[in-house]
């Protein structure tokens, strides 16, 4: 036995999931423990300090910085409306006074006699946290947020763009290797999460944007299509904050890859159910993978399966694996041998390898680093 270098992605028909929904700064939690919530329900809210407008009144009024406090018509802590007089110079013998009107509404935060700078803080910005999961509030941290639990079918993708989205699950492809094209995206798919089998094409993405589809899920995507969709070449895999009006999740990787059989079957079985998805991906320092969550009604699930971060699994004879490196990228099989000693690869490197029995009956030898376990 040996540890897999790459933890596999979770694909589970029933798992107990818990998600923490926490405010970025302290605020108010609107739900109580035990309460059932819908995915789109606001569970906590707060106000972030408003934008700051620095105003260099010494320059604006042409006075030395030390005189700025005396010129102020408003004191620190007072509020000011947009266009309201904010400061006035004393002028010469009371004449030729110049006045400065506030360019924005806000509160005077500070007046500096050193630099002549006045900091004007704008209206607080509301921040709302949605439940994201339809389920039950199991824990509340007053002022901070809450934890929500649900029983759900759970699929982790390998890569995604766009943030949280919600909608009814619709299966657009007939088979797990059928590419997703514009023709698959129908008028009645607005606000839905549309699942394809193989590679999702740029035409399908454009059509989905046009028809206000909430999210697309597919096996693979071409990097060129992704760049066209994003409008730039993605450099580092930290995503989720894109404002594209559409979340896209791929379950297998880049290129022409069919969705794993189990994933496609699981999503197909849940067609029509309400689901929550998140495209946010982060590969470095605290891995975050995109996810598709389809809450189940009633019945208890397997205890805590899939709730935490996936741990590195055990590679053993018979374990189902996906090859994640060339020249066999995307192929699925079972581990058929685990030689202990490092072996020479075609590249000339020496590495620990394993043998995979592919579904075609062919057996191939690949570095252990180039497989991932298909986990449940």
């Amino acid at each position, binding site marked *: 036995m040996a540890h897999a*270098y*790459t933890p596999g992605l979770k694909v589970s028909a029933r798992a107990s999931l818990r998600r923490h929904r926490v405010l970025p700064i302290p605020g108010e939690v609107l739900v109580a423990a035990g309460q059932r919530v819908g995915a789109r329900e606001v569970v906590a809210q707060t106000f972030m*300090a408003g*934008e*700051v*407008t*620095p105003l260099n009144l010494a320059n604006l009024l042409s006075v030395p*910085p030390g005189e700025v406090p005396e010129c102020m018509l408003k004191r620190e802590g007072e509020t000011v409306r947009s266009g309201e007089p904010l400061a006035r110079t004393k002028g010469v013998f009371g004449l030729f006074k110049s006045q400065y009107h506030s360019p924005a509404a806000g509160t005077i*935060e*500070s007046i*500096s006699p*050193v*630099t002549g*700078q006045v*900091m004007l*803080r704008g209206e607080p910005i509301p921040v709302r946290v949605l439940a994201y999961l339809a389920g039950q509030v199991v824990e509340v941290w007053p002022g901070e947020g809450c934890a929500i639990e649900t029983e759900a079918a759970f699929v982790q993708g*390998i*890569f995604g763009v766009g943030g949280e989205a919600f909608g009814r699950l619709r299966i657009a492809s007939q088979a797990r290797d059928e590419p997703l094209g514009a023709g698959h995206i129908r008028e009645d798919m607005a606000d839905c999460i549309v699942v394809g089998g193989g590679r999702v094409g740029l035409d399908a993405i454009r059509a989905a944007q046009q028809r206000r589809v909430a999210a697309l899920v597919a096996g693979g995507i*071409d*990097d*060129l299509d*992704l760049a066209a969709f994003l409008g730039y*070449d*993605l*450099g*580092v*895999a930290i995503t989720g904050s894109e404002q594209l009006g559409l979340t896209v999740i791929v379950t297998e*990787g*880049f*290129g022409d890859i069919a969705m794993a059989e189990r994933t496609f079957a699981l999503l197909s079985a849940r067609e029509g159910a309400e689901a929550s998805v998140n495209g946010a*991906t982060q*590969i*470095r*320092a*605290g891995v975050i993978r995109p996810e598709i969550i389809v809450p189940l009604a009633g019945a208890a699930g397997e205890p805590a399966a899939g709730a*935490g*971060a996936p*741990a590195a699994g055990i590679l053993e004879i018979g374990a189902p694996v996906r090859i*994640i*490196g*060339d*020249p066999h*990228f995307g192929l699925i099989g079972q581990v058929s041998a685990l030689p202990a000693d490092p072996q020479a*690869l*075609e*590249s*000339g*490197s*020496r*590495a620990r390898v394993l043998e995979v029995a592919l579904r075609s009956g062919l057996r191939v030898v*690949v*570095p252990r*680093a*180039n497989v*991932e376990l298909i986990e449940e």
Partner: protein
Amino acid sequence: MRTIDPDKLQVILATDCGSTTTKAILIERVEGVYRQTHRGEAPTTVEEPSADVTIGVVNAVSEVGELAGRRLIGDDGTILRPSRDGAGCDLYVSTSSAGGGLQMMVAGVVMQMTAESAKRAALGAGAIVMDVIAANDKRRPHERIRRIRELRPDMILISGGVDGGTTTHVVEIAELVASAKPRPRFGGQYRMPLIYAGNREARPMIEKALGERADLRIVENLRPVLERENLGPARDMIHDLFLEHVMAHAPGYDKLMRWADAPIMPTPGAVGSILETIARRAGLNAVGVDIGGATTDVFSVFDGVFNRTVSANLGMSYSIANVCAEATLPRILRWVHVPMEMRDLRNRVKNKMIRPTTIPQTIDALIFEQAVAREALRLAYQQHKEFATTLKGVQQQRTVGDTFRQKAGGQTIVDNMKLDLLVASGGVLSHAPRMHQTAAMLIDAFEPEGVTVLAKDSIFMMPHLGVLAQVHPAAAMAVFERDCLIYLGTCVAPRGTGKPGRACFSYRIESEGARREGRIAVGDLRLVALAAGERARIVVEPERGFDMGAGPGRRVEREVRGGTVGLVLDGRGRPLELPEDPAACRRLVAQWVDDLALYPAPAPA
């Protein structure tokens, strides 16, 4: 921390807690000489579910112990000290870059002057600089405030103004930082550590602006006069705060700090420290590079001046897509001599990005990976050259206006002709199947000129030796010289360009009992055997228009060092230019691949 008597140290244990792997080495005094004897590694355990760095340390140390036949972990689960009866060690030291390393934001008044000095201080201390805020950074004040709010650095360094100069601008920067109410990365449990190293006259005003909002520490001005930098006090304070705040809040580090016999250093800070020490002791000009999955660090010491840069998004796995975006695929493919399909390559790059632990299995995949590495290294070195400059704004100034006009004149101090030693580390360089490939990547990316020794860090030991040098410099030096570096050989390359096929230089190599001579034409690359440990004298007579360091066309005689690769005589010219036409480029690169026997022949069609 225990008191250490350096003379009594027999067994030294050092660890480096990286983002993914914790590496441990054992150094023992063998017949009066310090030697690195065993190494072990284990996954780093900073993240959940373990969330305790010492678990990874114990695992890595246990592996070393098993290999050495020495019990290093005591019954209480900590490191056993002192060494007695074949068990334990006398000294334990560690470096760390786990959890994303040390992340800082720096600010100054003028981007090219005090802000640049502040950036140099932070980088030199081993930090990743997330952003540089300056009065002339072309952002509007509210944009700067928004940026400071968005970032969640471990600490902030503010500088600005020479001592006795105007205070207004630096106080203005401090007011912006105060308004932004920056939050530290590890949550709101403590106040943001903030170092002020600017105009001493402004200290009371800085205290007023920031004293209540941050954990303010004041140190000497890092640019007391325009003509001089004084980075030491700021760097030391960064190290102190790193231990006090960053380390203390990372999982398990409170325990690790208690175990260690010397302060834990940020990994890049330790690498820089050892390279600086070695270069100064030997009177060398040296460049070191560490190419990782996410970042590439470049360190240089020229004429005793140390510089470090971190290219945050140039790396071979997490950041490989960014290398391709910045360098562009056509430029990367200049180094590939076999046909490859663009669409397939783009997908391959992204698949590596999302599954960063995969390794190249085929020759094609290896060739492509090494081509990407050349461009990542080239870009990182270019950034380093632009940063490692003479102080800007100090020459012949008469008025402030003149000073500002001259600041663009800060010349890079990186001079490839003066470069004596180029040291490589990081996966793609260290684990290349053939060392010839490592040498070729270094030469193609860095384009050393004149006579340059090429080496690689055998097992990435430089961080351990850097921190050890703080306690026992002699032991660190001894191990560095004997066990740390693997010499690849020497590159001999004149500066200048010419028409392919035209004479470039002639050479004569004299070693014990052997004399070899020949001519190199423009575009030629020749490998001459000179084994590790061997030295020879080389006489190079460049043609007109080519310079080996003594001036165009002038003869040069130098001692050269052999290695696992040998002598590389490079007549391809400097700067190194490749044909624009892809087919011609591929033919030429294929020739070079043959000349250096880089890949098993025949390469796949």
